[in-house]
């Protein structure tokens, strides 16, 4: 038995929040602030998969999933219903 650690999955639908959605995460920040352990980060997408010529896209990425307490406050607070935790 390898005894794998529990994996907490958090998904953000970028069709709803971020480069394709209605909301610029910089204007919202609700999930960032509601999360006690600060699981999310907000960052530019330049150099990732977006066009590097237009760096003006920002998105939220859950990076510290292992610290998530599954309180679901982020799911509740998101005005676009873009976050899923399981």
């Amino acid at each position, binding site marked *: 038995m*390898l*005894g*794998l*650690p529990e*994996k*907490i999955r958090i998904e953000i639908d970028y069709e709803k929040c971020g480069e394709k959605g209605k909301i610029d*995460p*910089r204007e*919202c*920040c609700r999930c*960032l*602030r509601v999360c006690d*352990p*600060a699981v*999310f*980060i*907000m*960052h*530019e997408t*330049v*150099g*990732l998969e977006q066009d590097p010529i237009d760096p003006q896209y920002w998105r939220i*990425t*859950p*990076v*510290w*999933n*292992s*610290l998530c307490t599954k309180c679901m406050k982020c799911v509740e607070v998101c005005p676009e219903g873009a976050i899923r935790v399981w």
Partner: protein
Amino acid sequence: MVCNWCTKHGAGKKWYMNAKNYSNELADELRAKEYLTEQWTNFEQVYIRKIMGISSIDLGYKLKLPIIGRVLRWQAERMIHSESKNRNPRRADGHFGQVVPLEEAKVILGNLAAEPIIENYCMCRWMQRGIKERCCINFGVLSTVIERLPRFIPENNTARISREEAMERIEEHNRRGYVASVWFQPVPYINAICSCENPECGGLRLRRDFGLHTVYKSEYVMSVDADKCQACGMCVHRCQFGAIRLVPSLGRAIVDPKVCWGCGVCRHSCTHDALGLMPREDVPIARGRY
């Protein structure tokens, strides 16, 4: 016994008390301007960069994996402390720091920091909370780099402050409950004093939650004067690290020296002059535990 970084870069003193580590000559030698421009332009992406080809998203999970986790940890520590010529600024290779008490932070800002000095928005709080709080004091080459990045500086580019203002500001932040820390960026060039809090600070996060040595504990440990302590418990609320407890039966507070970071912030809450910093070396259980 002194810490590894003092031996290497302290010239017989603590590493952050060595004036050479603040010099423009050193910055030139390390090509710090190029490094810092690349690092700060892309800073918010630092936690999604790859380590050994593995994305650092959910690093906490990956570090717990058998075998892979141990290799990942070894490599992450190597990156954090890298002094290699080809370190990657986008991953912040060679960027780490140490907590300092207010007195030492003031000595640094008053005497050692290279001008110009600026106070810009804390990048950690920005990327982790979307909050712009002006409390990061940067100096030397890093100031001129950050001044070109509008998201980190107040409008009309009014980030510059004098030495005296810098000393006043660090005291304000410290009294507010933020922990002062001094940073190599990249090692051994020193150019920042931050005012950190848990869990937003990226350095404290990686150290406290994942045990990676992005930031070291200070050269001190707090001690309580049992005769003076009135058991008001104010210091307990102030501690960012959960190192102080109130023991009702004794009628005083106790500090766990294994947990204490020696930041000294709890002192601001004590109205009975019962808290004082002791050199870490003088506290057997804390000696060498940075």
